[in-house]
């Protein structure tokens, strides 16, 4: 059984008289344990696809199945809890909470679930991401790369089944970006997680196990 499955998913944005079909009848299956890269030009719908996969957005039509269960038929609360426990996000602009320290940011998803994560797991994550000495810092005291590592750590802390990364290297230089990709891959392998990463950079996409090409709202390859 596929981990994630999209069935005839369409997403349309309407602004006044303007109608934009971001996704058109997309069917897609994501299998567990693989590193997927979704590639497409700007405006092709790749981020929209990712957001729907992560239940951060609702499709106009179609369904999303996570481990066989239809996600959008659940209540908002159920979807939120599902997202909290099963999906980790890494955004292009990090989206860390500036009033919380690095450690607090990392632990937040677990704490929101009312749980304390396993200390060993935490050590493992922060060690893997090389941010042990930054835990007391605040996000605006870190560089871009460091912030992205914190974001990755936060995404990993609840041991989600899926990591969704939306252009995680978009705000980083090439070297740092590559480091981030390496980290993501390493973490995925280590913790046996499925990664779906959106990028417009073919070089990054080539490092994935599978590439999903999206053109004009439809899956190409």
């Amino acid at each position, binding site marked *: 059984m596929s981990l994630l499955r999209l069935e005839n998913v369409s997403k349309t944005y309407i602004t006044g008289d303007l109608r934009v079909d971001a996704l058109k009848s997309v069917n897609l299956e994501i299998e567990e344990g693989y590193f997927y890269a979704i590639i497409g030009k700007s405006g092709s719908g790749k981020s929209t696809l990712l957001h729907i996969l992560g239940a951060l957005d609702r499709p106009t039509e179609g369904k999303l199945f996570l481990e066989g269960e239809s996600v959008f038929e659940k209540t908002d609360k159920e979807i939120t809890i599902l997202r*909290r426990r099963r999906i980790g996000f890494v955004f292009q602009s990090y*989206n860390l909470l500036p009033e919380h320290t690095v450690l*607090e940011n990392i632990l937040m998803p677990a704490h*929101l679930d009312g749980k304390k994560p396993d*200390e060993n797991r935490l050590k493992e994550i922060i060690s893997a991401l090389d941010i042990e000495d930054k835990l007391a810092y605040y996000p605006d*005291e870190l560089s871009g790369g460091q912030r992205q590592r914190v974001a990755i750590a936060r995404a990993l802390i609840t041991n989600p089944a899926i990591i969704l990364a939306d252009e995680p290297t978009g705000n980083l230089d090439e070297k740092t970006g590559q480091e981030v990709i390496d980290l993501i891959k390493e973490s995925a392998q280590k913790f046996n997680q499925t990664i779906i990463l959106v990028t417009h950079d073919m070089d990054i996409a080539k490092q994935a196990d599978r590439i999903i090409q999206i053109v004009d709202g439809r899956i190409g390859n």
Partner: protein
Amino acid sequence: MLRKIALSGMKGRKKDTFILSFVVGLSFVFTILATIFHASSEGTKLEQRTAMFGSWDAAYLNTNKEIVEKIREKDEVEKLGVSRILGNSPYLGVIGTINDDLMDLGNFTMYEGRMPEKDNEIALELNRLSYFSSDIKVGDTIPVEIVIPIYEREWYEAAREQVIRVIPEIEERFGFKNILYQMNNFGIWAREYYEKDRMGELTAYDRYPTDWFSYIYYGFANSYRRNVNSLEQFGDTKLVIKTSYVQMFIPDSYGGYRFSPYTIPDVEGTELPEDPPEELTDGSIDPKELSMISQKGHITRNMVVTGIIQNYSNLWDVGDEPLPNAFVTEEAGKSFIENGFLLTEEIDVSDFKTYDNVFIDSSISSQDFYNKYGEEFENLRRNTYAYPETSGSTESTLTYGILAAIFIATVFAVFQIYLTQTRRRTRRIALLKSIGAVNSQIRSVLLWEVVYLLLFTLPISLVIGFGLSKAVILFVNKYGNTVLNLHIDYMLTLFGIGLGILSVFLGMLAPMVMSMKVPLTGTISTPPRKKPIIKGKLKTKPVNLNMKVQSFRRISLRNLKYNKGKTLLTASLYTIATAVLLGSIFLSFIFFGDYIDNVIVKDKPSYGFELNHALTNRSIPKLLEALYENEGVTRVELYKAGEHAYLWHENINDNEIYASFREILPSKLIEEHFGIDDTKYVNLDDDNSHLVGDAIVTNIYTIDVEDPLYRRFEDSLSLGEMDKEKFKTGEEVILLLPLYEKGEGEGSIDEISEDILVNTNQKNRMEVLLRNSNKYKLTYDFRYGDLYSKDETLSVGDTIYLTIPTEDMAGELPTNDVRFIETKLAGIIYYFPEKGIWPFGDTVENPVVIGSYNFLGKAYPATIFGKGYLTIEDLDYLIASLYPHKYGKTYAYIYVDKDANEIDVDVSIKRVAREYEVKLTNYIEENKKIFGKSLNMTAIVTLLGISVAIITLIILYNTTLSKLEQERERIGILQALGVTEGQFKGLYLLSGIGYGLLALIISHLLLGLAVLITFISGRPQPLYLYPWKLHVLASIVVFIVITMTYFMPLRKIIRNQPIDNIRNLGR
């Protein structure tokens, strides 16, 4: 181009532009409303003052033509109203001429018709109508009689002169001796004798005078006058010179009365001839040989009534000088005087002069004119009623307060909205900069936005503002029973608008500066934290990996702390809105308190009658019938009163209030309130002297048991029951004993200032002095029923003893005895439930006896007979000299339907008042003034409260909205991390409740401070009378509004998908 950018930008941000326009427009509307209301209020007051008191600046009264011309020559004199005083008329009062300038300056309001224009026309004051026995209408021809006094003296002076002239002649001619001897009399003593007696200045010589005039029977003075009239006609003018002489009237020993200066007096000790002298005939004598009492010229002309003028003469600021009650033209004046009176051949009138009243309108202010010419014209007087010295009123201060509040609120609102917009527009601004726009161009775009905003909102606000002003004025006029005319003070309104425009520019100043600092990267950098973290320090600080679980609440609290400034601003704004709203209630309570206390709670009537004697039981229905004849009269409450009775009961010496009062009373006034000199009364002995010596002076008010007033007292009883029969017969009475609260005062007589004392009378003195010395507060107000104490020295069923000076005479001397009345106490009234019973709620007497007419008759027998054949003037004299309380008093309180025709009712009541010769008090104007002022103030305060509260709430809603806009990203992130909708709702609801509670607590602390200030300043407000229910309701409403204002904007945001909220940044 920049203008186009600005305009298209505003069109593109429709919602933001709408909110901004709404706030700015609203502030202009309220500004215009406040300024117009203020100008209308002040303008109407000036109109009303000049309408009531004339628009003249200064006056010179009782002057001559020379002075008039001197005044006319002054440069500043623009108009000169001149009224020549012709004389008095029995029905019309003072008659004077009127010129055109006086017609302008007088602002006379015609009740009907017009002012006279021809020499046979007259207009009279409305209050003169009641002097006529039949209705006078415009168009009627009436005889106008002007009486010019030529000579006048007291009749007894004339009599004395005659006696002195005639008696020696009688003695010489007829051989009577010792005519000047004491006469027997039982009437009224001559004035000067009894003046001396009252003052205790009679001498032995006075008691046995040689001047027999002092003992002449005074009875009917007119009967002693010989009137001689002459008649002359000058065209339409008839002149009668009436001369009055005194002719002595003495009963003679030959049985009969003779009118003759030579009539033989029947006096003991007078030697009479055996036969009457031949010259003693029927008493015909040439009057000119008699002594003249008075001589008057009566000039009469028939004139047409052209108009009835609304009363003015009792209103103008002219001191005691009489003003014309009727006006004729200057030509008519000449017909009366030059072509009438001065043509008489009967007497020499060459020295006769009339006097003028002059009213001046000057080109400079009233005060300036007076300052300039006050010395030169010594008797010049300023029209202080129309142009009072003090300008500026509480309303003015409040209006400026409103403008200031609106100004501040608008600056905040505009600042806050523009700030939000600026943050949202950073990308666009960055874009403009990236394509080459310099800061001055960015600035221009923003300034043009403000210009367009103002161009759009101002005209609409002006229209709405003026429209709303008109509506508010209509409302106040309809429900406030006032007349407010629309006035626009253009300078003030322009000032307000200017202030509004300034507030908009000030509000957008800071955001504009921020806009110019937007970097090309398109984000406004986060302002640095106040306490930058030192990296080095934290680096080495150990971190606890096993930290405590952060609940969503803790996470949110961290956010609040992180945004302390915004949190504080939000809390402050909520507090301001709450404080202003609750403050409005408090201020309204204070302003209306005056009306509630003085009119409603005391059941204040429209008119009061006071008669100097008790009417007979047969006269009362006639009086009532006369009053009720006018349909506007809804209720009349009448008392027959007996005053200055000594009240004693067994426990009277335990009454601490009386004891305290006695301590602080000046010694010269003790006798008015306490029986001190029990040796004064001849029938007091050791057994009963305490009935006066230990007594308190009280007044007895009696009622008709069949009247509804009886029922009102019965329903008001705090203790006991009234048995109608026993009450009627006088077996029982009830007492009014006021509630009291003991104060801290250790006041002594020295602390009671003369100013306070001079405004007291026998009835209110106890309450006033005890209050001012802070010893006791006394009241009949029901609102203190559970708060104050009650007099426990008396119980229902107790016997009370009333001792009343009989004021009888035995021959020439007062009997100095008293009458003893015993009665049972059937009931006690400590306070009046709900509405008071006038006048007791107003003048707190202690104690007051309420009894029946029969009871009064027992206590004051003379009251049974009314005034008999005495005139009111006779009675006044008797009361002043001999019998201050014997004849009792009558008090009637008249209530008028508020929808009745005021003028009709007024004329009819005044007619009755004149017929019964009562002292009339008009409470209507007082009541109206208090209500009108209260409503005006309340309207202004409410306006203030509503305007500031609305603007503040708009700011708050927008603040919350923009705060949430700024937090959307954070909300989106938290949604992505797994915070549910329920958790967000719970948090924001709690926050709203927190802000609401905080606002309420701080507002109440501020209000408490305001109340404390009123206490410290010596004007404490009776908080237990505060409308707490309204206050609680308002607090609840405000609390709910605050909570919802904070909570509602969230709902939309949390319904968005997480990614929509995250994407919001930099949109």
